C-alpha cells in the first residue's frame, strides 16, 4: 500500500515561530501537494510539486514556502506562524499524469493539526 507519512499529528507553536511540516511518500510518486483544511472551506491547495526542486503556487500560498530536495520528501514551511494559520494540514501524492498504473488519485497522509497561539 502507498504510504504518505506526515511527521507530526499535532503541533502547537507560538506566533512568529518558523514551522516545518514534513511529508514523505514511499511510492516513487512524482507529484506532491500540500493542502490545508478548515471547517466549511474544504481543502485548499497551498503548494504543489511535479518534480524534484520544482514547486508551483496553489490557491493560497501567502505565508508559506516549500522545499523538495528529494523525490520522496516535500516540506511545508511557515516562515512566521500566525494565528490564522491554525488548521489541519494535509500532504498528498500521486503518479504523474499519463502513468497507467494508479491513475491520478491523490494519496493523503494522516494530517497535522497545527495550532498557533
Amino acid at each position, binding site marked *: 500500500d502507498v504510504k504518505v507519512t506526515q511527521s507530526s499529528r499535532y503541533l502547537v507553536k507560538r506566533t512568529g515561530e518558523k514551522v516545518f511540516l514534513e511529508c514523505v511518500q514511499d511510492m516513487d510518486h512524482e507529484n506532491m501537494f500540500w493542502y490545508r483544511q478548515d471547517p466549511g472551506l*474544504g481543502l485548499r*491547495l497551498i503548494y504543489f510539486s511535479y518534480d524534484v526542486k520544482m514547486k508551483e503556487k496553489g490557491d493560497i500560498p501567502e505565508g508559506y514556502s516549500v522545499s523538495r530536495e528529494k523525490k520522496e520528501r516535500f516540506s511545508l514551511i511557515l516562515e512566521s506562524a500566525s494565528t490564522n494559520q491554525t488548521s489541519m494540514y494535509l500532504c*498528498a501524492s500521486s503518479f504523474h499524469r499519463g502513468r497507467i498504473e494508479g491513475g491520478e*488519485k*491523490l494519496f493523503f497522509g494522516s494530517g497535522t493539526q497545527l495550532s498557533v497561539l
Partner: protein
Amino acid sequence: EDQVTQSPEALRLQEGESSSLNCSYTVSGLRGLFWYRQDPGKGPEFLFTLYSAGEEKEKERLKATLTKKESFLHITAPKPEDSATYLCAASNTGNQFYFGTGTSLTVIP
C-alpha cells in the same frame, strides 16, 4: 468557474436506512471524479474513481455513480462504522483538483 458542490452538508441515518449523497460538478475537461472517506482527525482515504458518465463502482455497502453533471454515493443498509465525512473531488485536464466541502454522515444504531 470550476467547482464542486456537495449536498447535504450533514446526514443522519438510522442503521439500515439507505440513502444517497450528491456531488454536483462544473469542471471543464473532467478527467476523473473521486470519492474519499475522512474520519475525524485523519486524512482522506480513497474510495472510488469514476472517469465517464454512466460508470458505476461498488465497494461493500457503497456504490458510486456518475452522470455528466453529478455523482452520487449510494449507501445501502449503513452501519454505525460508516459514519464519517465523505468528500468528492474532480480533476480536469490540467491536473487540477477541485474538492467539495463534504457530507458528514452519522449512522445511529
